[in-house]
């Protein structure tokens, strides 16, 4: 087996490689954002790109998310394929009109004459001690709007393959990266060209007693909990939808029907959130195969605290998922 097959990259390296490859492949691909050029973003995800592609294609913008997102919408409509960088996902709030009312609607309202092939890359996830305005996971907001695709990669492999698909998509795509994964999570990424289609869930671990549906940051938590559960004699399946829209409903339902018990985990708020939607999909599709209520686990319904012990308490952990799964299986 060639050495490349065993190559491991960090999450940030995988994202950077996807961008570099797509920028080499298509000269229309460009990057707009705060501190994306020389600084390579505060998360150092884009380091080295400005050196290769220049400041014409890696453009530092003023601190005005609404402004440069609108710029990207217009650039996409007129022929470029911009990738917008919104440093902290909390500030998608400033881009909402550009995304929800413009990017999501232009293709439809122009009768197909205009299209908006842009990507918004941004972040989610707590526990970085960044306080209430820099720790939220607001991907549900975009998942709610018809016309937007929403991607939540959970591994370096998925990040690269999904980002390349996002850049090549003719529609606006929002790409959420867990900021805690950028440099902490390493995984195999082949050097060969590949893309991953949207709307295809991935079974990260097969099991038979309970399904843990997990997105983004929660996938690693689910895998850790699954290991604990295995030691307790419970076989947990971990399935990652990878995109909240399009959503691979069939695979989620199939897994639920196989195991009869489901916990849905997502770092966003549960109230009216991604977990609520997925739980409803499963309840509708697998009702007569469910042996227990579908349980949801996500961020506590509070502003994320700055105090580290309090912040940690707002997010599901391997232990809390392990306990919830045991209870659902009647083993607690």
């Amino acid at each position, binding site marked *: 087996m060639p050495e490349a097959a065993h190559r491991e990259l960090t999450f940030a390296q995988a994202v950077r490689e996807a961008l570099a490859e797509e920028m080499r492949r298509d000269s229309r691909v460009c990057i707009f954002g705060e501190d994306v050029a020389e600084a390579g973003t505060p998360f150092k995800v884009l380091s080295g790109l400005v050196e290769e592609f220049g400041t014409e294609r890696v453009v530092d913008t003023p601190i005005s998310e609404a402004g440069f997102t609108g710029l990207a919408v217009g650039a996409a409509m007129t022929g470029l394929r911009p990738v917008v960088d919104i440093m902290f996902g909390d500030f998608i709030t400033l881009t909402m009109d550009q995304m929800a009312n413009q990017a999501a609607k232009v293709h439809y309202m122009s009768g197909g004459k205009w299209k908006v092939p842009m990507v918004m890359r941004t972040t989610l996830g707590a526990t970085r001690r960044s306080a209430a305005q820099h720790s939220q996971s607001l991907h549900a907001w975009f998942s709610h709007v018809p016309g937007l695709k929403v991607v939540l990669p959970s591994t370096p492999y998925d990040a690269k393959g999904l980002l390349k698909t996002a850049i090549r998509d003719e529609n606006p795509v929002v790409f959420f990266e867990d900021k805690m994964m950028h440099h902490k999570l390493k995984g195999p990424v082949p050097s060969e060209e590949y893309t991953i289609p949207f709307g295809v869930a991935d079974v990260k671990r097969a099991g038979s007693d309970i399904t843990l549906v997990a997105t983004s940051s929660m996938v690693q938590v689910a895998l850790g909990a699954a290991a604990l559960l295995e030691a307790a004699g419970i076989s947990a399946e971990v399935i990652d939808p990878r995109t909240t829209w399009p959503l691979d409903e069939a695979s989620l339902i199939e897994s639920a029907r196989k195991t009869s018990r489901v916990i849905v985990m997502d770092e966003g708020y549960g109230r009216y959130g991604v977990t609520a939607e997925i739980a409803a999909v499963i309840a509708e599709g697998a009702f007569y195969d469910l042996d*227990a209520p579908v349980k949801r686990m996500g961020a506590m319904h509070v502003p994320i605290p700055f105090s580290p012990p309090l912040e940690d308490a707002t997010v599901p952990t391997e232990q809390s998922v392990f306990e919830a799964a045991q209870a659902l299986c009647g083993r607690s």
Partner: protein
Amino acid sequence: MAISVVMPALEIAQETGTLIAWRKKEGEQVAKGETLLEIETDKAVMEIEAPGDGVLVGVKVHEGAVVPVGQTIAWIVAPGEALPAEAVPSSTTTTLSATVPARAAVGVAHTPHQQDASVAKISPKARRLARERGVDISKVRGSGPGGEIVAADVLTDAVQHTSSQRSAEPLTSVGRLMAERTTQSWTTVPHFFLVQEIDASAIVAAREHLAPAIEKTNGVKLNYTDLLIALVARVLAKHLRLNSSWSDGNIRLNPEINIGVAMAVDGGVVAAVIHQADRTKLGEIAVQRRDLTERARAGRLRPSDIAGATFTITNLGMYNVDAFSAIITPPQAAILAVGRIADRVVPVNRQPGIRPMMTLTLSCDHRVTDGATAATFLSDVGEAFGEPEKQLS
């Protein structure tokens, strides 16, 4: 005006009935004559019809409960009408919630505090599996976090069920009753049997002779059973001891002669009753017998159809049985088992001749009658069979 639904008495000595199933739900609209519930008595499972039009409310008795005869088990009220005061337990404060919605929405439950106790919590998967595998969830113990029945409980139960009854067929209600009642009779009633072979020429001739007129008048094809019912009933009128009942150490003479006719139904046998058969014309007996047979086959016998028999006739002639001994249905005193009519070589005027012959076997309760008394009756039956048209004229 609220109508009470009571546990009916289907037979003289019945004290309780078992509620097998409600066919209508609490809050559901019912029409007079529609099947409302099923009950089980000592003799059979019966469908009970709604006594009036309205909305079924105040269901007090759950499926499987044994209820004294005459007890109110539910009410039928007009839409919007409140449950009668007597139906509302005085110790609760549910009077207001016990009124019926004016539109009588189908399936609206109105006695949650009563239903909770009987409805076990069960997962959707477990409920589906129970239905698919025929598991009675009321007998399954739940192992869920809150005692809920989960799929594993149903599967375990189904496995036990299958392994313990691998080659067994589940009993129908009728079948279970048959098992209980015949065991009780056979182990408590001292049976004795009298056998008599008779020449059936006259019966055969009478049937051929009478059938066309009855078919024309009553629109029914006369059969041998009809003739036997009519003849035996008329003979019984002169042998009241054979028409009496054993009742707690006493012999009770029955004022009416009601002939039960054993009929094969799915999973067992029931005895449908021709009331006052001694006073009923042959054509009318044939009509009643045909209607009862049709209802029995359809599983739609009414309470009055099986109530009140004082003597039973069972005929297996159509199955080519020559003769057999039957088990008495308590508290009746006797049962007459009739074999087929078949040509036999018998002495006729001291010469071998061929005659249609038939064997009658009378089973008697020795507490009620004795051999000589019963023999006189059987002899008279044989005689009546020798001159049927005279007996019936």
